[in-house]
């Protein structure tokens, strides 16, 4: 990317509505993605909608999770484009991107496998706690980008 890119020409920096609107999409999609995953996590902890199995809940929620993740990453890329160099140098942002990669891989491999299989309570509880901690840490890192 050595093309002449000047963030000052980015609509996010020239229109006073564009940036906060992107952030609102980012937050609403965050609620959908993390919220749907945490519904499966609650079930893995043995709580929440116990009428359904964790595998069923994952099927119920996966399209909304994917939609949420797509919008959260899309709006995140837009926010990133408003000042790429500033973000790349930001420690909280670096942590968030590494964490996002780990959380995504975890969610679609280990977490998915455990939600589908018949595992012992120790395994499902651990899987749910790891999942909740991973996604929550991304939110914390996201907030801290603005404070460091």
């Amino acid at each position, binding site marked *: 990317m050595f093309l002449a890119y000047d963030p000052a020409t980015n609509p996010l920096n020239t229109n006073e509505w564009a940036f*906060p609107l992107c952030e609102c999409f980012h937050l609403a999609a965050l609620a959908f993605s993390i919220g749907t995953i945490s519904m499966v996590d609650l079930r893995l902890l043995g709580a929440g909608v116990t009428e359904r199995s964790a595998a069923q809940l994952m099927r119920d929620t996966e399209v909304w999770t994917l939609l949420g993740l797509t919008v959260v990453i899309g709006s995140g890329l837009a926010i990133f484009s408003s000042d790429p160099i500033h973000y790349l140098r930001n420690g909280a942002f670096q942590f968030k991107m590494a964490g996002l990669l780990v959380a995504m891989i975890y969610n679609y491999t280990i977490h998915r496998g455990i939600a589908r299989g018949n595992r012992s309570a120790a395994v499902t509880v651990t899987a749910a706690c790891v999942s909740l901690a991973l996604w929550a840490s991304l939110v914390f890192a996201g907030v801290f980008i603005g404070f460091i």
Partner: protein
Amino acid sequence: MTIAAISHWIQSTAWATALRESELMYPLIMSAHMASLGIFGGLIAMTDLRLLGLTMLSTPAQEVIARLRVWKRFGFVIMIGCGILLASSKLDSYYPNPYFQIKMLLLGLVGVHAVMFHRSVYGKNAPATGLPAKAAGALSLLLWTGILSMGRWIAYYETPK
């Protein structure tokens, strides 16, 4: 006593001052506010989608509401608790902020919404079916999206000089 004086008094309490001046506590509480939005706001969103008939169709909406009730209340308390701390620490600039005022109004409407649909949708043994369920789900989604958006916009208001 005017609202300005009350706001200033709250903001000037020792704990509100400490929070405002803390480089770590303020963003930590804001992060907790946002993480509870993610985790528990998502439970609200999924309940709304169930009420709209968009997911978990083989489980009655009534069951979904009953099972998630305690978790949503728990999350609501954390979210509101952190929100009160954040707003109190900067109340001088928050109370005249129109986005903050709209956010508070919408939160009040969430209360009205809960009472309005208590017997038909949200209460124990409420049927949670048909038009009232769809209306309650759609309104809830709208209200919470509004609350979240106004919350973000609070940061973009500049007090006229």
